[in-house]
């Protein structure tokens, strides 16, 4: 009887432990860059379906080389995204003390705005007023659209292959 009870308890424990794992089988990932774009095809030349921002969660449907087919839970958008945008970690956007403690013991969490951050940059600027960031801010505004890239390739008789 004891043995039977023990095995029953073990069985129940497995059920309790195991079922959430089965339910969460769908692989979730986070956007680890400021802005991400989901495209209709696995290529940077593919039509942009939707835009995502830092910390957004997507679920993985299919992987093809560096491209991942993902879906959004918030709406029915689906499409391709490059894996360099994704992390398996969950990104905490406004982390509090508890999140910091949790992240110290977990590889599953990443904290936005912690470590070397805007705050540290500001502190550095205060200490080093001679270093000017104006051109860095200007540089960051040099953004080339997908349309211009397509034109540039065509004009230059460039035909990209594999991995573009």
């Amino acid at each position: 009887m004891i043995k039977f009870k023990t095995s029953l308890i073990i069985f129940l424990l497995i059920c309790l432990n195991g079922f959430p794992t089965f339910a969460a089988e769908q692989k979730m990932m986070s956007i680890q860059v400021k802005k991400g774009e989901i495209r209709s095809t696995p290529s940077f030349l593919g039509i942009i379906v939707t835009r995502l921002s830092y910390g957004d969660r997507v679920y993985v449907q299919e992987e093809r080389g560096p491209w991942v087919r993902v879906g959004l839970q918030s709406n029915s958008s689906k499409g391709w995204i490059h894996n360099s945008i994704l992390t398996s970690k969950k990104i905490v956007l406004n982390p509090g003390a508890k999140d910091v403690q949790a992240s110290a013991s977990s590889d599953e969490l990443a904290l936005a705005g912690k470590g070397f951050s805007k705050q540290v940059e500001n502190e550095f600027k205060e200490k080093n007023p001679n270093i000017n960031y104006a051109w860095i801010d200007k540089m960051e505004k040099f953004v080339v659209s997908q349309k211009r890239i397509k034109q540039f390739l065509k004009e230059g008789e460039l035909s990209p292959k594999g991995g573009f």
Partner: protein
Amino acid sequence: MTIGSKHRSSGSAVRLAVLGLGIMLVLPLFIYGCKTMDAVTNIGTSFGKSVGMISESQAESISKSSKAVARSFEDFTPEQEYYIGRTVGAVIINKYKPYRNKKANAYINLLGQTLAKASDMPETFNGYHFLILDSDEINALATPGGLIFITRGMLRCCRNEDAVAAVLAHEIGHVQFKHGLQAIKKSRVTSALIILGTEGAKTFGKEDLASLTETFEDSISDITSTLVNNGYSRKFERQADIAAVTILKRVGYDPNGLVNMLKVMEKKLKPGSPDFAKTHPSPASRIADIQKDIGKSAGGKVPKARHARFLAALGNN
């Protein structure tokens, strides 16, 4: 006892199944064990420190012996990499002057951002951005996260678009392999992570911010002194050249653009000058290595329209 014996008859298959399930249950406990130890060490360290039970150096050695030792540059998030890169870039611009030519900078960005899409790391936290530096030095520099600088002196080594593409693709290679972050001394990465770990119990205190900023400053100077004075290892330069060839081929450029640029550079470099001559392997040795990958060829002719836009943007450089 008697009731138990009834169940014994349920067969060895059931017992085996139970044993199997039992192992499945216990095994994750062993695996999670490592993580739990980590957490314990961490909490212990921060608590001990806050009540003055252990010294800073002891705290450091405890953290080092647990998780921190396994941690490295790879643990910086793209966001942190971005903030490191911004300040490294600001320090570079402080040393050089930007080249205030809208057309030339727009062309470099169009070319560079197109190339970046073909790298193995096409996306960084805030993307790749390029700027020409108003200097006769022959130099190109990349910061973590993708701010890339190229001097007018370096552009003069480029006879066509394929050659400029080769220089930019080489720099994108350094970003892709996170070579900049790897220039940061390991002790700094460790101390940054310790500050973050101990920060948990309180809000971001002034002291923590000050010491984190100090670590930040030291990390920036590790990177800039490598970029400007010491150069990367031969291995890193080779990796960047290999990445450049891959990127050029993927976009449709002739990888001989890299060889042709290096040939011009070889003639122009002055031994002992404070630029590529100091921080890079000799062009001849790089050419020899690259030709092992792509073979020897003079390279094809650049299409007319491609050459025309190169001349229009950089012809007067």
